[in-house]
């Protein structure tokens, strides 16, 4: 086993405290741009929600950008990924057009799900992203099913099944652990531990040891990873994927991360202090960490990064414009896609 059961680094480790993982300037610039795109996209979605252009539940990914970005780069492009309702970041990371994602949020015909799924239900088959699921924990067996299909088809692919630390208490997760391990399926269970499930801190919902050890009795090696460090996420995923691809079965990775916003747009997040949020934001932010390193290691100038910021803003602004100007689905769409014709 390449992975091990001990924490690889703790979430409170200050940036730069650990030895930095190797990465080229080109690579780091890519992460910077992609994570920033997700953040700006989500900020814009929040604004559109406030303007009444997006409805229902809308769960922003702000703070967690390193997780989906690290997963993307730790996997091959055709490895499958599945997650819950907090899925916008994954859509963007895997390559969906920001305009089409935003148009889904505004419920337009040119949205990725043609306006029918909304924030929680986005799929991108071209990029092997399988949603976008609203029922907490349900995506975990689905992700194991994708792994079963990979093994069955012997296509060498791996499946990443992502879920929150709150979802990690759901019974079907353990059923999925058992079968994945029993059948040596190529699946990486990724817990995005952002410390809260809605208003419930992890300590109030979880008994026993740390989450990454919850697979141990099912024979699944677990590891805690700094989910704010895109390189750490990427490396942990790479190792687990390699191991799974070799037929050694599943791994469990607990990504220590944090969400800066409320659970969804309707959550004022009174269950934690402003200081708690701002401490993470200022001391251990995923994007800042890459930014600092880019400057430290002279891969980029302040000006070059500002230019990226401007470009990202333009991309997101364009997506927002598109999402507001596109038409709603045609009324006849109410009745389509219920069933495939035989």
């Amino acid at each position, binding site marked *: 086993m390449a992975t091990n059961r001990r924490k690889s680094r703790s979430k409170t480790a200050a940036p730069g405290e650990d030895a930095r993982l190797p990465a080229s300037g080109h690579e780091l610039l890519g992460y910077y741009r992609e994570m920033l795109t997700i953040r700006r996209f989500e900020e814009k979605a929040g604004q559109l929600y406030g303007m009444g252009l997006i*409805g229902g539940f809308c769960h922003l990914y702000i703070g967690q950008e390193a997780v989906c970005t690290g997963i993307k780069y730790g996997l091959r492009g055709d490895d499958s990924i599945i997650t819950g309702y907090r899925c916008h970041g994954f859509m963007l990371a895997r390559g969906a057009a920001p305009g089409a994602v935003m148009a889904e949020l505004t419920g337009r015909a040119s949205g990725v799900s043609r*306006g*029918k799924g909304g924030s929680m239900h986005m799929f991108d088959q071209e990029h092997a992203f399988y949603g976008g699921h609203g029922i907490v924990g349900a995506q975990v067996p689905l992700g194991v099913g994708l792994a079963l299909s990979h093994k069955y088809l012997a296509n060498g692919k791996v499946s990443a099944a992502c879920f929150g630390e709150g979802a990690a208490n759901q019974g079907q997760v353990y059923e999925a652990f058992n079968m994945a391990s029993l059948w040596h399926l190529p699946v990486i269970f990724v817990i995005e531990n952002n410390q809260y*499930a809605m208003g419930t801190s992890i300590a109030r*919902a979880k008994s026993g040891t740390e989450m990454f050890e919850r697979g141990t009795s099912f024979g699944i090696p677990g590891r805690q990873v700094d989910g704010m460090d895109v390189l750490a996420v990427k490396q942990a995923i790479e190792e687990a994927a390699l191991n799974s691809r070799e037929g050694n079965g599943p791994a469990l990775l607990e990504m220590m991360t944090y969400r800066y916003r409320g659970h969804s747009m309707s959550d004022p997040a009174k269950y934690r202090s402003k200081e708690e949020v701002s401490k993470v934001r200022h001391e251990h932010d995923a994007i800042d960490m890459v930014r600092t390193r880019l400057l430290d290691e002279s891969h980029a100038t302040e000006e070059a990064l500002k230019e990226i910021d401007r470009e990202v803003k333009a991309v997101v602004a364009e997506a927002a414009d598109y999402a507001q100007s596109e038409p709603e689905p045609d009324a006849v769409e109410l009745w389509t896609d219920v069933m495939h014709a035989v």
Partner: protein
Amino acid sequence: MPALTVREALRDAMAEEMRADPLVFLMGEEVAEYQGAYKISQGLLEEFGPARVIDTPITEAGFAGIGVGAAFGGLRPIIEFMTFNFAMQAIDQLVNSAGKTLYMTGGIQSCPIVFRGPNGPAARVAAQHSQCYASWYGQVPGLKVVAPYSAADAKGLLKSAIRDPNPVVFLENELLYGQSFEVPEGEDYLVPIGEAAVLRPGADVTIVAFSRMVGHALAAAETLAGEGIEAEVIDLRSIRPLDSETILASVRRTHRLITVEEGWAFAGIGAEIGAIVMEHAFDELDAPVARIAGADVPMPYAANLEKLALPQPEQIVQAARNACYVE
């Protein structure tokens, strides 16, 4: 009478019953410190403490089962599902463990428990968060099923449900939580389970609805009155037992019936009511029973499609006109 929102009425019902009976407690996701995902349990943790207002992990099958076990052990649990969509994870515990045990044990083992939470469509929450489970639970002998519209009924029925020695599935509606209604004062205000209410008398056509659709039925009746059609509006309130007497009595007067529900028509509550009327008042019907129901599709997200998927008052008006053979 003071006006209360449905939200306040539900909270007051629980608070009053918890004051009256130390065996009553509330358990569910975010019910305590967060005061309820929809703030139904506002203030309860403060008043009753963490032993009686219990936050759970996101494990519906587990805590529903724990609730049933606690009821077996002599307590009177109120189990809140954040929405009934998530109760599908736990539905075996509701149906098989709560609903069937009294019968299976020949009357030995009671299960006094209330399962409550919002049911049916909310706003823009799409297919996985919008299902109405009234007819599923309504089908099961051994369960009582309630689905109030007004704050008064919400309060009176929830108090009855908590006092009931049987398992009760209590279906709320998120979009009603903020609506205000007059509510009779006093801790003794109870609404008995199993009785429908005639909210508006009328001689020409009967409209039966439950939960949020009662508002649509009343709006439609208002429009119809302007056209000279007097609609009688019945709020079902309880799904099981279903008050067929009130419906039949009305149909025997109006000879016309429209049913309204947000869920899917197929084997829904409207179908059941139609069957009952057919069985008991076939010769009284001057027009076929018309069903107004949610479109036969998973709930779409887009605002325009969602509106098309849900029953609108205008559809009820049109169905009533048709039943009265008015152009």
